[in-house]
C-alpha cells in the first residue's frame, strides 16, 4: 500500500485553480519527485498535504489514516514532516535547540517542566542526545551551539532537514532542498538524501528544479503543469513523455531541459 495517497486534490484561489484534481501515490521507501515549471502548483500541493492550506476538494491519506481537516501539528504527530522552500529555521535559537524543537511531539512533560523530576530530566537528556545524533548525521555537529541564523546558507538547509527528521517522520516533504546551493553543496545534499532513503528507510517527496539531482535521485516522478498532473512514472518514462517535453520546452519557462541526463 502507498504511504501517501492523494486523490482529486484541488485548490482554488479566487478563480485561479492552483492545484487541479491531482492524484498522487508515494510508495514507502522511495524518493518521489514532484516537478514542473514555475507556478505549476507544486508548493501549493505541499501546503495542502502538510495542512498549512485547506483544500477546496479532494483527500489526503498517510498510510490508512485520512489527514483531511487535521491541522499541521496533528499531521506531524502522525508522521509527516516537511521543509520549506524559503528556509524557515528558527534563526534566533541555537542549532541544537532548533532540532530539539523538532522533537516536540515526541516529548510529553508538562508539570515536570516546573517540578524538574527525574522523568523530565531523562526526557530532556534523551531529546538532546537524539538531536546531537541528527546533527552528526547531517554533518553539523560542530555548529550545535551556534545561532542558527548565523549559519551559511547550505548549512541552514541541512539544519532544516535535521529538524524535520527530529519529528520521527514516516514521510518527509522537501520543498526545493537544493535551491540556492552551489554544485558542491548540491552534491553533498544528494548523498544525504540517498542515505535518508537507504540507511534510514525514509520515504521522501520532493519538489526540485535541479533536474540532474532529480533524475539521479528519484525513484518515481510526478509532473505538474498549470495545477494538473501531466505525467507520472520512472525518470526515464517521464523524460520521454511528450507532454513533459512540451511543458518544459514549449513554454520556455525553465532553463534546464529534462533531457540533459543525470549527474554522476
Amino acid at each position: 500500500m502507498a504511504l501517501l495517497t492523494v486523490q482529486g486534490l484541488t485548490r482554488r484561489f479566487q478563480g485561479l485553480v492552483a492545484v487541479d484534481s491531482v492524484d498522487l501515490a508515494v510508495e514507502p521507501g522511495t524518493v518521489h519527485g514532484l516537478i514542473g515549471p514555475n507556478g505549476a502548483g507544486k508548493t501549493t500541493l505541499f501546503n495542502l498535504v502538510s495542512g498549512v492550506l485547506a483544500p477546496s476538494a479532494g483527500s489526503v491519506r498517510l498510510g490508512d489514516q485520512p489527514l483531511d481537516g487535521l491541522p499541521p501539528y496533528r499531521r506531524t504527530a502522525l508522521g509527516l514532516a516537511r521543509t520549506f522552500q524559503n528556509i524557515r529555521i528558527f534563526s534566533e535559537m541555537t542549532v541544537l535547540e532548533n532540532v530539539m524543537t523538532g522533537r516536540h511531539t515526541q516529548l510529553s512533560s508538562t508539570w515536570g517542566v516546573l517540578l524538574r523530576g527525574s522523568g523530565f530530566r531523562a526526557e530532556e537528556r534523551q531529546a538532546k542526545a537524539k538531536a546531537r545524533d541528527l546533527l552528526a548525521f547531517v554533518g553539523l555537529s560542530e555548529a550545535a551551539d551556534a545561532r542558527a541564523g548565523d549559519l551559511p546558507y547550505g548549512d541552514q538547509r541541512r539544519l532544516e532537514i535535521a529538524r524535520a527528521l527530529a519529528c520521527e517522520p514516516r514521510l518527509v516533504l522537501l520543498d526545493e532542498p537544493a535551491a540556492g546551493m552551489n554544485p558542491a553543496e548540491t552534491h553533498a545534499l544528494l548523498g544525504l538524501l540517498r542515505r535518508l532513503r537507504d540507511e534510514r528507510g525514509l520515504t521522501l517527496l520532493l519538489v526540485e528544479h535541479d533536474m540532474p539531482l532529480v533524475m539521479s535521485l528519484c525513484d518515481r516522478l510526478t509532473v505538474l503543469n498549470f495545477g494538473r498532473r501531466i505525467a507520472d512514472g520512472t525518470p526515464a518514462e517521464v523524460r520521454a513523455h511528450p507532454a513533459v517535453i512540451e511543458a518544459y520546452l514549449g513554454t520556455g519557462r525553465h532553463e534546464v531541459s529534462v533531457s540533459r541526463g543525470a549527474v554522476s
Partner: protein
Amino acid sequence: MWDALDDFYWTYQSLIHGIGVNGILALSVYVVLAVGQLSLGQAAFMGVGAYTGALLSVKLGAPFAVSMLASALVPALLALVVGGPTLRLTGVYLAIATIGLGEITRIVFLNWDYAGGALGLSSIPERGGVPAIYGTLAVLLIGLTLVARSRIGRAMEAMREDEAAAGVMGVNLPRYRLVALVVSSAMAGVAGCLSAHVSSFIGPNEYGFETAVTILSYALLGGIGSPLAPVLGSTILTLLPEVLRPLADFRLMVNGLIIVLAVLFMPRGILPWRIARTG
C-alpha cells in the same frame, strides 16, 4: 541600622510596592508576547482582579488567600470568553478584542454601584504587603524561567519566530495561545489584587488604555529574551519618574515614546540576552 531601613521603607513604601506589582504585570504581558501574540487587556485583567479581590475582602470579609485565588480565576475566565474565539485567527484579532475589553471594563466599573461606581472602592484592608508581592514575583520568575528552559519554552519561541514552521514541528498553536492568554490574565489579576490590598483604594479609571499601554512598554523596553528582561524594564520605568522628577508630568508621553523607539530601533530591548531553551 534597622531604624534607617525602617525609615527608608516608610518613605518609599509605595514605590517599593509599585516595583514589585509592575514586575508581575511585566511578566504577565511577557507570557503573551512570548508566543507571538499581543494583549492590550492586561490593565483590564488587573482591574478585574483588583475589584474581585477587594470586593471579597471589603464586602464579604474573605481571607486574603481566597481573594487572591478568585482574583486569578475571574480574569482567566474573562480571557477565555473574550480571547478564546480569536485564537484561531491572526494576532490582530486578539489585540483588538483586548483593547475593547479595556474600554468595557472601565464602563462597567464606572456604572457598578455595588462596587462604588465612579467613587471606586475604599478602605480595602491592608494585606499581603511586601512579602506577598515579592514572593509572587519570585515564584513567577522562577516558574517562567523553568518553563523557558524546556520543550514548552522551545515551542513558545518557535511560535514567536515563525508560526507556520512551529505548527509543522507539531506545536498545537491554538492551545499554546490559549494557555498563554489565560495564565497571563491570571497573573495580571493577582497583581491587581496585591496592589489593591496595599493601596487601600481602587477606582474605575486606574485600569484604562494608558495603563495597558504602559504595561506593554515594560516588556518592550526590557525585551523578552528572558523573564528577567521585562522585570528590568518595569523597574526602570517605575523608577524613572522618581529619579527624574521633571519627567513625572510627561510619564505617559515618555512611555509612548519608549514603545515607538524600542520597536523601531531596539526590537530586543535593553536586556537582549537570550535564555537557553534546554533543560
